[in-house]
């Protein structure tokens, strides 16, 4: 762990939405950090709040309807306090984002070459004014220099036949090619922090694998921090230095990648890891019973307790505190601290209990 301040530091981030069913408390007190040059993954099942967390970090949530609380510090600046114009300077120049769906992240009416050249020319340069914008847009030297860089980047992301891709519309490219174009676009202005929301997961398995090995190579070549979102533990294990496991809008556990897969502490993490199908056939078939909680009426106490095989009355009544397991690892489960009254969860024990456990049924809805 470096001594310098982390590149990205999120403290006590909460996001909620006002809806017809009441207030949905989607992200609750999330703390996370990304060090310089570190690759960090947020993993969790669908609906655990990982995408909303990244949207809050990137400032994509409109407030209202969203209520965002907490600080998002990037390199010492609180992003949430920054005026819009300074924010635009950081975007693209120092922070880049890759969205999940490679088709909808590209403008359908311009060729790849045109829009990537725009990004190269204008990324992180939000304040040129209308006239300045058009002067640069039509300056042929500026434009062709930017175009050269786009070509270089397309080569770097191993785009087949980059010259003709430059003249193609997004609809004319395959999913893998679009994903490569988007990765190239995100890297054009050499960001310090890349935020990637499930890169390539919309693609089929073989192409997804190619994209992941491309990302591996890019991570090796570049001095870049990455915050990645995934529901795929394999991706987390393959690419990241450290993993956050998220459940029900809270961080359940975080640890360096090797540790979390060797010795998971939280029953939820243990359940996830036990659910990974293995060729030896020793995986349990059922996974973790139940589903992510209703955010308008989250479970009291630990949000995982309705599905947790260790849950008892104390899990319902009190919120679990973080328990530290070494310098970078912590886990939020009440069982860690009361070794006397029950077992400190172990992977084997969790596996055994989960196969017998029935999740607590949702409380019946009363008349409203």
């Amino acid at each position: 762990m470096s001594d310098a301040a982390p590149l990205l530091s999120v403290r006590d981030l909460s996001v909620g939405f006002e809806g017809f069913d009441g207030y949905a408390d989607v992200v609750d007190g999330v703390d996370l950090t990304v060090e310089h040059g570190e690759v960090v993954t947020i993993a969790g099942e669908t609906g655990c709040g990982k995408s909303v967390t990244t949207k809050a970090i990137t400032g994509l949530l409109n407030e209202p309807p969203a209520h965002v609380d907490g600080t998002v510090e990037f390199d010492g600046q609180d992003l949430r306090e920054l005026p819009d114009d300074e924010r635009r300077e950081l975007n693209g120049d120092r922070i880049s984002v890759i969205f999940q769906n490679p088709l909808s992240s590209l403008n359908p009416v311009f060729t790849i070459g045109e829009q990537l050249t725009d990004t190269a020319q204008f990324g992180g340069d939000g304040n040129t004014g209308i006239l300045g914008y058009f002067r640069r847009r039509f300056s042929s030297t500026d434009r062709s220099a930017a175009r050269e860089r786009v070509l270089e980047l397309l080569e770097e992301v191993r785009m087949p036949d980059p010259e003709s891709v430059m003249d193609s519309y997004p609809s004319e490219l395959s999913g893998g090619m679009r994903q490569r174009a988007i990765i190239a676009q995100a890297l054009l202005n050499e960001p310090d922090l890349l935020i990637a929301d499930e890169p390539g997961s919309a693609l089929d398995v073989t192409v997804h694998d190619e994209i992941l090995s491309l990302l591996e190579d890019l991570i090796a070549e570049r001095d870049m921090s990455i915050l990645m979102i995934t529901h795929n533990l394999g991706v987390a294990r393959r690419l990241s230095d450290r993993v956050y496991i998220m459940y029900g809008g809270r961080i359940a556990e975080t640890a360096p990648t090797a540790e979390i897969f060797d010795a998971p502490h939280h029953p939820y993490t243990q359940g996830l890891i036990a659910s990974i199908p293995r060729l030896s056939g020793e995986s349990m078939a059922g996974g973790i019973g139940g589903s992510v909680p209703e955010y308008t009426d989250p479970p009291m106490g630990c949000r995982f307790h309705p599905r947790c095989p260790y849950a008892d009355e104390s899990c319902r009544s009190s919120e679990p505190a973080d328990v530290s397991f070494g310098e970078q690892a912590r886990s939020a489960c009440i069982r860690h601290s009361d070794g006397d009254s029950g077992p400190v969860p172990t992977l084997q024990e969790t596996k055994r209990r989960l196969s017998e456990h029935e999740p607590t049924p949702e409380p019946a809805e009363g008349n409203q």
Partner: protein
Amino acid sequence: MSIDTLSFDTSGLDRIVSPARRELWYRSYRRFANQPMSVIGLVIVVTITLAAVFAPYIAPYPEQVGSFTDFANAYHPPSLDHPFGTDSAGRDILTRVIFGYRIALLLVAVVLGLGVPVGVMLGLVAGYAGGWVDTIIMRITDTFLALPPLVLALAIASAFEPTLEIAMFAIASLWWTWYARLARGLAASLSDEEYVQAAELAGASRTHILFRELLPNCLSPLLVKATLDAGIVVLTGASLSFIGLGVQPPRPGLGTMVADGTQYLPAEWWISIFPGFAIFVLVMGFNMLGDGLRDLFDVEVEQ
């Protein structure tokens, strides 16, 4: 299937327009050409526009447009010399219809030329900015929208001296509202598209978002709307002229000519009927073209 199958040497052409883009144009052309109605509409609009532009060279008796009188030839029914007949002053009606198209299309050009850019820019800014900017722009738009164009044009035209120019600006001063509404709705929904958010997160300026992300992506519905609207502008102008608040005699407004001819109905029917039919053909042309474009771009436009 591409046009390159004809194996011409296209390397020179490729440098100007890439083969991918040429193919795209070609495919769009094929789709458009497969709709007979829209092709007919396009032919009508182009023919009438050309006739209007070159009216002095095409019209059989260009000297008879204005305050020309030849009472010996008045009330002449349609004949080879005067295919649409002559009016009460002995002027050739075909000539006056061709010049009338000139005025009608000038009206369309001015009203849409002012209304579309103003409305679209206001709408895009409102839709993209949201918040109080949106509220202010759209409430002002709603205020203008509450006034029927014909009624406001009536009021303005009767407050000033009724001329073609006054009528034009009266119509144009209201016409932008529909484009503001349409562009605002399009911009608001496009702002949630991932590629617009991606551009924002890539640090693009507001100018870039407006002109490179939002505007190009709402051009097709706007073009369809403008084409369908052109016919309505023609009708509005003709209505104003018909009740005497638009084009003033002796200038050859189509609506003015219809109004002038009504007093000679039904005996000298050609004085009214041919200018009326001319309005009908032009409006039909715009509508058929607009419908064709709508099918081509596959957009929905409220009418």
